[in-house]
Each structure stands twice: as structure tokens, then as C-alpha cells.
């Protein structure tokens, strides 16, 4: 079960499902959101005529016009800052940041305005915007195109942060994020854009801010999100061949964290490995480790282990396979945990 097919009535589903890539799913989700609400607008660099460098917004400008799909001037602070104004005015902007490493010019707007306006105005101002960020490595790119900056945003109160790991979730989560009245940072695992799954657009999705157990197991728990979820599922398959059943949990929501399924799992398995591409220092992986030891101290049979990117800048791409957690590093950590 590499990619989950959710909420399907066996038998009846076949006619309604279609095979889509994660990227296409986002595109379909954006389209559905724009059809459902005329206040939804898409803005970013090259999102219009080109359809985005990853084609996630392909065809939207053609069908919804230049007033709803804006090829903006080249400035991320401008994109996010004007989206704040548009949101105050009643729009629901969906901003695209072309690559993870280019979100930083918008950092000030995100941290100072997007995150705080609701609090500062004591709820009088809502900022229902989504900031889409293709993130993570593994595509052989040059600098600034492979980063995992999600922890900065999870660290910032007032922002909601989610990440989808498969095509089915992509379709639903982007629509739910757009409907959310709080600002949502939406991290898309760019190296998984071409991963396929069966999508049933008539299904009832899970809530947005909920983690999900993707695979059950009793020996140890793997927790991950975004691009590393697939790595974890593959690790679990490999471990199963050796007779070790790993439980795999896809966090989906990074802020607020939904760790209840993680606590329940760890209470059963006694072992937890957290997997993420981001450097570990002061990261989400560290936060999860801290919370689990607070909640599950007596159930733990080994310390929580983290398999992450190193505490370095993202390396030149010839070295990224070393940097990124892979199946071997995940299983090595599982072995260390089980052998503690």
C-alpha cells in the first residue's frame, strides 16, 4: 500500500476513480476551489500563461481569466503582502512561491502580518490565504531549489502548516486549506509531483488538520510527512520482508500538530523514528520527539530517533542522496531503536 486509496466503497468506486499524479491532483483541486468560490484567486510568478514551472496551475488562467490568475511582478514579499490586502478585502488568495528557497523575501510579510493580523485585530481581520510551496530535494536542482523550510513556519504562531504526501490528499487538502479561514502554508513534495494514485472526487475526505496511520505495525512507529512518507512506506515494506512490522503515520498537519495517533501508536510499539528531510536542529522532528517523550515516557523502550537532513546548508545535488533520508538510513534507525 504505497499510496492510500481512501474512503472508497469497494466495488462502487471503480467507475468514479481516475488515476492522477500528485501535481495534476493539485491542479484539479485548485480548479474545484475556484469553481466553488469566485473569491478564490491564484497569484504568483509564471502561474498564468505558463501554468507554473511545475504546471500546477496549468489552464487556470485560460479558464478563469487574468483577474483571477495573476502573473505577478517578480517579488515574493509583494505576492504575499498584496495577498494580505486582498484577503482583508474579502478575497481568498492562493499564492504560489516558485521554489522553497524563494519564500524568504516574503518571510517578513508572513511572520509579521499574515501570522499576526488575526491576533492583533482580535479576530476582526481574517487572513484566509494559502501559500503553496513546492519543497524538498531529490530533483537534482541547483541551490535554493531543494530546501525544507517548514519548521520556520510551524514555529510561528498564527500560521497553519500542512503537507500532503500523495495525490489523493493533494486534491482534498488544497481545497480544505483554501476554505480555511486561517492562513495556511501548504508544502508540496515536489519530487513526488509525478507519483500517481486513484482519486475519487466524490469521496468524503478526512479533516485537514488530522494525522493518519497509513500502515499498521507493532514493532516500531515511523512518523513522517511530505516527500519522506513514501520513503517510510517503502522502508516498512522492506522491514516486513524481514519479519518486522512497522507502523507508518503521515502527519499531514505540521501546525497544529495532531499527535494523538502517534501517542497511541508509540504506546503500543514502544519505538519511534521520526523522518524528515529538514535539518534536525530546532526542527519539527525535534518537536515531535520532545512531545512524545513527555506523553509516552513509560511506554518508550528506546529514545526517539530522528532521521533527517544534516545540520548543513543543502549540498550540491551530487551529494543530495547522502543528505536525504533514504530507506537504509530509516531501517538503520529502526534497528538501532529495536536493539537499544
Amino acid at each position, binding site marked *: 500500500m504505497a499510496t492510500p486509496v481512501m474512503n472508497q466503497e469497494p466495488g462502487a468506486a471503480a467507475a468514479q476513480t481516475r488515476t492522477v499524479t500528485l501535481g495534476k491532483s493539485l491542479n484539479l483541486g485548485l480548479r474545484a476551489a475556484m469553481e466553488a468560490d469566485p473569491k478564490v484567486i491564484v497569484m504568483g510568478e*509564471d502561474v498564468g*500563461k*505558463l*501554468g507554473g514551472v511545475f504546471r500546477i496551475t496549468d489552464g487556470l488562467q485560460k479558464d478563469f481569466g487574468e483577474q483571477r490568475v495573476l502573473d505577478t511582478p517578480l517579488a515574493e*514579499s509583494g505576492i504575499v503582502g498584496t495577498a494580505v490586502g486582498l484577503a482583508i478585502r474579502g478575497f481568498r488568495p492562493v499564492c504560489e512561491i516558485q521554489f522553497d*528557497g524563494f519564500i524568504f523575501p516574503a518571510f517578513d510579510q508572513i511572520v509579521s502580518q499574515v501570522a499576526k493580523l488575526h491576533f492583533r485585530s482580535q479576530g476582526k481581520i481574517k487572513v484566509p490565504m494559502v501559500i503553496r510551496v513546492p519543497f524538498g530535494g531529490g530533483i537534482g536542482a541547483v541551490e*535554493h531549489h531543494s530546501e525544507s523550510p517548514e519548521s520556520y513556519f510551524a514555529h510561528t504562531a498564527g500560521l497553519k502548516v500542512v503537507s500532503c504526501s500523495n495525490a489523493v490528499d493533494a486534491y482534498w487538502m488544497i481545497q480544505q486549506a483554501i476554505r480555511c479561514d486561517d492562513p495556511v502554508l501548504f508544502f508540496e513534495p515536489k519530487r513526488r509531483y509525478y507519483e500517481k494514485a486513484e482519486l475519487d472526487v466524490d469521496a468524503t475526505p478526512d479533516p485537514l488538520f488530522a494525522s493518519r496511520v497509513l500502515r499498521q505495525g507493532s514493532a516500531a512507529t515511523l512518523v513522517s510527512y511530505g516527500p519522506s512518507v513514501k520513503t517510510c512506506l517503502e522502508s516498512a515494506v522492506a522491514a516486513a520482508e524481514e519479519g518486522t512490522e512497522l507502523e507508518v503515520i503521515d502527519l499531514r498537519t505540521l501546525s497544529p500538530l495532531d499527535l494523538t495517533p502517534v501517542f497511541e501508536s508509540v504506546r503500543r510499539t514502544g519505538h519511534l523514528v521520526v523522518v524528515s528531510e529538514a535539518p534536525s536542529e530546532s526542527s519539527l522532528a525535534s518537536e515531535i520527539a520532545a512531545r512524545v517523550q513527555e506523553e509516552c515516557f513509560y511506554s518508550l523502550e528506546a529514545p526517539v530517533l530522528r532521521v533527517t537532513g544534516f545540520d*548543513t546548508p543543502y549540498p550540491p545535488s551530487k551529494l543530495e542522496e*547522502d*543528505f536525504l533520508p533514504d530507506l537504509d538510513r530509516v531501517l538503520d534507525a529502526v534497528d538501532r531503536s529495536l536493539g537499544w
Partner: protein
Amino acid sequence: MSSPEQWTHPEPGVGPAATAAAPTAEQVIAGLRATSEGGPELVQLLTPEGERVPNPEWDRYVADITADDLRGLYRDMVLTRRIDREGNALQRQGQLGIWVPLLGQEAAQIGAGRALKPQDMAFPSYREHGVAWCKDVAPSDLLGIFRGTDHGSWDPIAKRFHLYTIVIGNQVLNAAGYAMGQRFEGKVGDDDGEATMVFFGDGATSQGDVHEGFVWASVYDAPLVFFCQNNQWAISEPTERQSRLPLYQRARGYGFPGIRVDGNDVLATLAVSRWALSECRHGNGPVLIEAFTYRMDAHTTTDDPSRYRLTDELEAWKLKDPIERVRVHLVRHEQADKEFFDSVQAESDQLAAELREFCVNMPDPPKERIFSQVYEDGNPVLAAQRDTYLSYASGFEGGDH
């Protein structure tokens, strides 16, 4: 009622304000033209047909250029183009992860690059392979970035050519600071003064960093030449997505001169760049140059321009090719013969072959490289992380992994 000029050059007190919200078709066309044609203020010394047009204002800055020098500029451009085409081919063959072509921008980059003196500093974006050439950066040193073996392997201090900067606009502020330093150290004021040149694109002009760079350089009188290559496109976005008025005119608002030069004319670009650098060297900086040129190829090897621009446009710009006009000029004035052109051709083939040879033999970086030089004085936590990983990885050596 309202004239096209009003729409493109809004001035107070002349007719109705704010016509931009509902421009007439005529005004839109005028607006587009203001950013997509060179316009009357374009400095040009060599026409696309290779005609040398006298220019009382600018001739003096290239009065010393002999036939030999012109042949040298031609050679620079041909070799630069050859490096570029080889980079593109190497990417197509899987030897590079990506390549960023400069095709069409050779004159802008060689004109600017050859105006730089050894003491001058340059801050490139990511497309300045021609400026790198002028700054004596070995073409093979550019490959690592695109092959994924390093983030820039030349010595930016020794070469006075900063690392490529990919985050749009960042380098403009860095260059402003560097130029402020040149002034603070008393290195401006005479013919031997220092100056800095920073390269960025038309799209970059929208970034806050570029605006701030204009502000800083101007209030500190920094010896900085802002060299904007307006190649008409920022990936899929035409220049009119970034500006309502020609980019060079922005300088006026910051209080320093701005000038638009034919960026496909190496002689004009050299003249204007020499003037601008000289102004800075003598303490009259900063200056903005808009080099009006065209990105003949895709944005990068991963881009598909057929999705957003017409081949007609490309065809029109082919007629303004920067190399062809110099060739025609040299031939017409009998300043170069077949032997010369053949020898440049042979030299470029040789250079390309060497580049290819170098590229395919580039070793992968060692794993230690991930952890090295993150800090000047190291970091014990990171050192432990490195040791753990290297010892873990050594367990796979010789195996299937």
C-alpha cells in the same frame, strides 16, 4: 484625449490622471512598445546591419578601439557563445543537471565585462557566463554549479567576480554594500579609483532588494553600476508585467542617471559601461544601465518558451544578432579576413572540446563536502554528525548500495 505618452510617462498636471486603469488600445500598444522596443533614447553605435553610426556623446568612450580591439570583442563573443552552446549540449546529454543559456546576450555581457578594470568588482546573477569570461574565470569553473558538484568553484575574491546568485535580487544589495566599502576606504576619486558592477534582469527590478540597492547606493554615493539586462522576459513574464515605464527611467526617481543602451551592440555597451564605471570611479556613482537585449533561448534547459512567446518575436530579434553585426562590420571595412574568422572558429571548437573533456571527467564530490566549511571554526555537533554519517556510509562501500 489622453496621449500614449501620458500613459507611459505619467506626469502631474498634464491631462486626466490615472488613465492606466482603463487604457485605450492605442495606449496599451504604446505602453508595450515603451518596454519592448528600444525607443529613441536607445544608445546605439553599431546598427544590426553593422553600420557604425557616429554619436557625438558616446564616440569618445570608444575612440581608442582599434580594428584589433574590435576583433578581440568579436572573438570574446564567439567564444562565449560557444561555451554557452556547449553547456546547453552537455545538459542535453545528461552531463549537467541544468544549464542557463545566455544566447543573444553576448554583446551586453562582453561590452560590460570588457569595460571593467582589474580593480573593479562584479556581482553576477546566474547567466553571466560572458562576464565571467572577461573576469578570467575559467569556463570549466562554471560547470560545477550546473553539474551539481559545487555551488561555485572559483575564488570570488581573487577574481573579483562574486559567486553566482540565484535568489533574484539578493546580489544587488550585496554589491551596494561592497561599493560602499570601496568608498569608505577612499578608493574612489580618480582614474585609478575602484568601482563595482552588479548584474540583474528585468524581472529582478521588481524585487525589494533591488529597490533597496538603489536607495543605499544613492544615499551613500556608492561607486556602483547597476547593469540590468532587459532580455524582455522573466521566465514566462514579459517586461510589462514588471513595469509601466522603461526600466532605465526608474533611476531618476532615486536621484542618479539611468541610460538605455542597445545590449546587442557590443561597442555601445562598452562605451556606456566605460562611462558609467568612470563616473563611479570618480565619485559620481551610482548609475543604472539598462541593456536592451533578448533571451534567444529558453530561460533554462528545463523551460519551454513555446508555451508563452511567439516565434515571430524570436525571428525579429535574430535579425539583431549581436555577433553578426560585428562580423558584417569587420568584413565591410576589411578589418578581418577569412583566415581570422576561421581561426576564431577553430579556437572556439577547441575550447568547447576542452570544456566537454573537463566536464565528463569531473569527479563527484566526496561525502565530507556536505559538512565542510559550514562554519569558519567548525561546530562540534556537526563534526559528530559528520563522523557518524561517514562511518555509517563506509559500511556500504564495496557493497551493492
